[in-house]
């Protein structure tokens, strides 16, 4: 089997490869992935990821399996539900729990960006198809949404039976769903809110925002239940929380390891493990849990030995997200001697169980979503980033400011001023696209990154002087 070597490299067992062979043959056929693609993918994962870590290898394997699942879903008689990134309020998770075996509830663009993009380097034609159909190039539109539309219109992934849309954090995501809805007549469930909090209000929340979001989530659950014919009950929610809290526990433990000096792994490796929570289907979740459970002791062992990709004492920074389409940007940071022990989306605020003062399930979920910051507003993201500086002993911020993401595009400008003035640490903001390498050049940033690395190292050395 021309794909065995790659899949084994990505943590698959022989038994699993044999068992899934018909599915793999069919899915790779649809995707047009042949022997040459497998060879290239092998080289890419070896070059790009920390393949000494079985947890990382398994995570890559889960993404590939997730891609096979979504490509074949309709052919295998499943009903298909798509949600967009970042997911809101647990509805996608609980649908996964309820509909196991019958419903595939995934974020397809995230799966494809990592599996077809980062692993196989075959995502560009999908991005171009999305641009041709709905999201024209040169307008700073999101690669994830282009992948969603491109993959559906090209027949790579099926037309879904339901779209779970959030309409307030990402305008483009809602528009993408609207486009698919208009063209294919797909039903959708919209969960609305308004990001109208004044600057600096966080960590306080207005009760009206919580109530409105909670009511929207609750009605979203009911609408989805009616469309899908499933009504989530307390047991389903408990199962969802149990499953995801186990995964989050693994993330929290890996974050603790990342506080070590040196951090035991490149953040980009951790990112593909962590995001398994946000993209794949319920059926793959046991494998995702296995990946994080495998990774945690591997990281602890490295911490105990005091090893990592960079030497002890290397400057430490926070970023928002590491561009994941390929690993060249992460490697640029490391080659400049810069360690990234934490990103905003890996920070505790995004994985820990946050206290809620509300009693109803919807209100609790709404409050926690807002307290995590992303759905609250820019000043909330700044709040948690400043806290990460303290928690992880950071020397600076290397902010990967997205070109394509309207909710986050402006953060780099604000954060540079706010953090440099308040925390007296340097901030370098780089314009990138997290999901689409065609719109920026990592190499053109090399000088900036290297200079920033020198600056951080010099500041750190100066602090050590008697």
């Amino acid at each position, binding site marked *: 089997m021309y794909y065995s070597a790659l899949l084994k490299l990505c943590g698959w067992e022989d038994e699993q490869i044999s068992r899934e062979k018909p599915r793999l043959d069919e899915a790779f056929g649809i995707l047009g992935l042949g022997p040459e693609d497998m060879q290239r993918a092998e080289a890419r994962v070896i070059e790009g990821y920390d393949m000494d870590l079985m947890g990382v290898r398994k995570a890559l394997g889960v993404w590939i399996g997730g891609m096979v699942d979504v490509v074949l879903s309709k052919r295998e008689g499943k009903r298909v539900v798509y949600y967009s990134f970042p997911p809101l309020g647990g509805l996608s998770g609980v649908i996964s729990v309820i509909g196991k075996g019958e419903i595939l509830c995934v974020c397809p663009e995230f799966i494809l960006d990592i599996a077809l993009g980062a692993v196989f380097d075959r995502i560009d034609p999908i991005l171009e198809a999305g641009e041709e*159909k*709905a*999201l*024209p190039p040169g*307008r*700073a*539109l999101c690669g994830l949404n282009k992948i969603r539309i491109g993959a559906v219109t090209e027949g790579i992934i099926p037309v879904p039976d339901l779209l779970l*849309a959030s*309409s*307030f954090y*990402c*305008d*483009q995501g*809602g*528009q*993408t769903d*609207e*486009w698919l*809805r*208009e063209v294919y007549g797909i039903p959708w469930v*919209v969960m*609305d*809110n*308004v*990001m*109208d909090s*004044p*600057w*600096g209000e966080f960590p306080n929340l207005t009760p*009206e*925002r919580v109530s*409105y979001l909670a*009511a*929207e989530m609750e009605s979203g659950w009911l609408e989805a239940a009616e469309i899908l014919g499933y009504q989530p009950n307390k047991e389903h929610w408990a199962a969802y929380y149990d499953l995801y809290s186990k995964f989050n526990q693994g993330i929290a433990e890996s974050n603790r390891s990342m506080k070590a000096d040196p951090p035991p792994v490149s953040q980009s490796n951790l990112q593909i493990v962590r995001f398994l929570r946000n993209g794949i289907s319920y059926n793959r979740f046991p494998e995702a849990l296995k990946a994080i459970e495998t990774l945690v002791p591997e990281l602890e062992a490295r911490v105990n030995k005091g090893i990592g990709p960079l030497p002890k004492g290397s400057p430490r920074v926070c970023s928002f997200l590491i561009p994941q389409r390929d690993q060249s940007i992460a490697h640029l940071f490391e080659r400049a001697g810069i360690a990234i022990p934490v990103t905003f989306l890996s920070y505790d605020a995004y994985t820990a169980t946050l206290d809620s003062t509300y009693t109803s399930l919807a209100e609790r979920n709404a409050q926690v979503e807002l307290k995590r910051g992303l759905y609250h*507003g*820019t*000043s909330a993201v700044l709040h948690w980033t400043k806290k990460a500086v303290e928690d992880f002993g950071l020397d600076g911020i290397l902010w990967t*400011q997205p*070109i*394509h993401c*309207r*909710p986050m*595009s*402006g953060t*780099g*400008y*604000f954060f540079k*001023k*706010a953090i440099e003035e308040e925390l007296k640490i340097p901030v370098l903001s780089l*314009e990138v696209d997290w999901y689409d390498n065609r719109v920026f050049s990592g190499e053109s940033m090399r000088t900036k990154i290297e200079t920033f690395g020198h600056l951080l190292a010099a500041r750190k050395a100066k602090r050590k002087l008697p």
Partner: protein
Amino acid sequence: MKALEAIDVHLKNRARELERFKEEGRKIIGYYPGGYVPEEIILASGAIPVGLHRGGEHEPVLIAGAYLPRWYDTFIRSQIGFKVLGGEPVYDLMDLFVIPITDNNVRILGDAWEFYHLGKIFRFGVPHRKTERALTYYLHGIKAFKKEMERETEASIADVALGEAIVLCNRERELFRRISFMRRTDSSPLKGSDFVRLLHASLWLDKNLMVETLESLIGELEQQPPPPGIGPRILLTGSTLAYGDSKIISLIEEAGGAVVMEHFAEGLRNYWDDVAIIGNPMEALADAYFHRRIAPAWFRPSKENRDFLIRLAKEFLADGVVWYNLMYRDCYTVQSTLVPKLMKDATGLSTLVIESDYDEEEAGPLRTRVETFIEMIKRK
């Protein structure tokens, strides 16, 4: 026409007038245009509402680059630029900037205004769905805005005053509708550029003055002989048509076309529907400004907006549609990929999609595209 000449004079004098009001202790309240800030609340408080709708110039866009990345709507960046550059009286004089948060572009304007200490702002949220709870949320927002105005002016706003302001604004809306609807006939009595000039003026000028001027304009229009036949009738739509951004209308008119209807954030949304004058005035404002407002592109779903465009094209006997989109206003960009086919299927009309970043260098290529489009319609 004398009324239009009067408008120009009033606009020229408005800055000095506002300065005088300010010296007298009256509050100048700037607001983000787009149809979601009830001017009635500002008027009832005794303050002076002014819509911040300057645009069309490249320098403010460039200056804004020091405060925001370029990946935001050109009009949004312009607002930062006009404020920072100075010299635009309204931007300098206002005591409070009211920003209804609609999408991420408008949100970042509020963030930047607060973060860079460009002035005092008040924001409230505009939900993206037309539901009862969304209406309740909007109502909560404008009630908070009313309280803010009471704090600002140190006076309570009585329902009677709100009622009077509603009646005044309704009168202005009614007059705008009368003038606008005259364009539904074969021969439009007023050029599109002149009608847009009126719309823009209404965001700055005193309401009573505006009403008087519109009344006298209607008198003039009714007395003048029917104008000769006009060129291809164009429905002009898109995200924002700012005060000072005259390029697209000029190009259409110079190419021989006639803009017979314009649907923008500061276009018909402001005059299409009246506010009810019975019942609780705040609830009536919420109903008119949110529930009955024509939903913009960032609504979920935004089908109402697309259907409304088709209705406008039919009612105003359009021969073609020009979709004028500012760069990076993502909701409108995505809609611009849907509308041409829907419009063609429903009406047989062609749609020309144009984007602008208020850059002077756009003029040449845009002229060629607009002229070709108008020529194509003429030959049909």
